């Protein structure tokens, strides 16, 4: 029952190319899924859902999306906040425009709209690379936030300039609006997170992922062996935008409920998601989860320890939290530049040989 390949024979190529080729890994994954769907909803309360689970699940989707673009395809983007805003506003317009349609469809459509916008802002990537592309996507960030602030059609001419999610239901249970039960919001996001992770994993282990990675590792060679750089890059922008849009829609509709664009989807958000991807591990789906968990859970943990455990004043704890999290990020990147996913990989390789490493 340990983590190893011995005795775990593969007799077909399908078995060999599956997501978790090692039996122990596979069972662990099923166990986590069962726990997440069948156990956690009965245990959690409002605090856990809003402080821990919802942000973790939603940021995981955003991190997966950005990881496809940055980690797999090598195109740096600083526009994540803006693209999340596109998802949020698209979802808002759909919810208020077509209230009779299910929110599930709204969220997916919001992802689709964001994908289209993302492709549009991805067009410069055909000409420019690296830092210069990062600056071009930064322009997207500022432009989109400005757009949603200034054009009142996007927030239905409301006086406050905010958008507020109306109540919607799935299978008779409210998932947005003030009446939402914590477990319903949690399950709603969980479904999207699991589905997005599965889709992303399938894309990255197949030909699409290979094309993206080929462009990332050596774009000239990729083109010479037959990868169409235009299609590969724009498809990465589209897929990335789809996931980021879904996360933006959930962030607005389920998590916050009411949103002011500059505050919720500013440049800070872009950096936060980028940090998640870098700390978690570029080019790894697991890394996206790890990075999101790290940056969502660590502040919560610190606050609980400092305020709850040691009884320090809240403001002092809040500032210390910045210092500690910032310091940890630096230490972490020096110790393991390839992120948490790499640590995990190394640990697994060691485990595979344990207890006889020679």
């Amino acid at each position, binding site marked *: 029952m340990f983590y190893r390949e011995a005795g775990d024979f593969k007799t077909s190529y399908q078995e*060999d190319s599956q997501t978790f080729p090692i039996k122990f890994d596979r069972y662990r994954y099923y166990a986590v899924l069962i726990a997440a769907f069948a156990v956690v909803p009965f245990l959690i309360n409002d605090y856990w859902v809003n402080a821990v689970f919802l942000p973790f699940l939603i940021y995981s989707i955003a991190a997966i999306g950005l990881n496809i673009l940055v980690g797999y395809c090598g195109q740096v983007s600083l526009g994540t906040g803006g693209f999340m805003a596109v998802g949020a506003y698209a979802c808002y317009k759909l919810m208020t425009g077509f209230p009779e349609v299910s929110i599930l469809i709204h969220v997916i459509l919001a992802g689709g709209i964001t994908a289209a916008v993302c492709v549009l802002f991805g067009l410069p990537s055909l000409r420019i690379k690296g830092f210069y592309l990062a600056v071009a996507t930064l322009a997207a960030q500022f432009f989109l936030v400005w757009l949603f602030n200034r054009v009142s059609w996007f927030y239905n001419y409301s006086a406050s300039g905010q958008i507020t999610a109306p109540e919607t239901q799935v299978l008779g249970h409210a998932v947005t609006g003030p009446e939402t039960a914590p477990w319903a919001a949690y399950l709603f996001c969980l479904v999207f997170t699991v589905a997005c992770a599965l*889709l992303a994993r399938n894309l990255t282990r197949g030909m699409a992922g290979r094309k993206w990675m*080929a462009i990332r590792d050596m774009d000239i*060679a990729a083109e010479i*062996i037959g990868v169409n750089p235009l299609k590969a890059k724009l498809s990465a922008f589209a897929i990335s935008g789809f996931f980021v849009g879904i996360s933006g829609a959930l962030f607005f509709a389920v998590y916050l409920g009411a949103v002011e664009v500059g505050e919720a989807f500013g440049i800070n958000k872009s950096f936060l998601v980028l940090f998640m991807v870098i700390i978690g591990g570029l080019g790894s789906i697991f890394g996206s989860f790890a990075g999101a968990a790290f940056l969502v859970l660590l502040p919560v943990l610190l606050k609980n320890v400092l305020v709850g455990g040691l009884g320090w004043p809240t403001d002092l704890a809040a500032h210390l939290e910045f210092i500690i999290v910032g310091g940890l990020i630096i230490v972490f990147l020096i110790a393991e530049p390839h992120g948490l996913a790499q640590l995990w990989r190394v640990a697994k390789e060691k485990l595979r040989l344990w207890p006889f490493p020679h």
Partner: protein
Amino acid sequence: MKDMDADGYTTADGRRIGSVVMEMKNITLRFGGVVAIKDISFDIREGEIRAIIGPNGAGKSSMLNVISGFYNPQEGEVWYKGQKRPPMKPYQVARQGIARTFQNIALFDGMSVLDNIMTGRIRQMNAGLLAQAIWKGKAEAEETENREAVEKIIDFLEIQHIRKTPVGRLPYGLKKRVELARALAAEPSILLLDEPMAGMNVEEKEDMSRFILDVNDEFGTTIALIEHDMGVVMDLSDRVVVMDYGKKIGDGTPDEVRSNQAVIDAYLGVAHD
């Protein structure tokens, strides 16, 4: 070379070479004022091993880049399989069945050997994004089918043991072999090899030579190669083009080239005793 005609010829070792697959007609390539290739014509025939040799800076790699669509020549025509080829992007040329390796290895370092070689199958895999995302139907079937084809090449080049290793960790000689495998995976009609033996020791050169001959023999692949090791070139190739300062100074069987005075002066030199 016997009975050379439109249909082909028979090599010294008795292999039958077919008709022309690729013909370069009066190619001229300029970079600003520098003329890299000047009015060169030659052809590549089906099933043969064609070498391009010449001193450094003669324009050999530029020639290969013209064939693989990386450069578009200012003058001249490229005829491929009996049709004039319009100016194309490199990936379009690749999809027509021309694969190549590079002088400095151009593998995808972050990917495993298997993924690198699978990328070479791009021509054979065209399931849509949605099918791939769901990993059912065409996408899954395609993945398995092509994996089988790739495993044959892995067997052929004897790299089974490094299948799952990230390419970045491999030593130089193996990297060269993986690059050959990636090019072969495309099942190309013409395989271009840019200095396949550069920087190898004698043993690795022997291995590589054997692989090149085997590829030609078993898959019938047409091969065009650039190489500096004269022993290797003269042993492997059926016909040789010699270039110097962008011009063609010789073309023929290794024996013909070896006794060509212009080639001796420009490149081969004479033994001093």
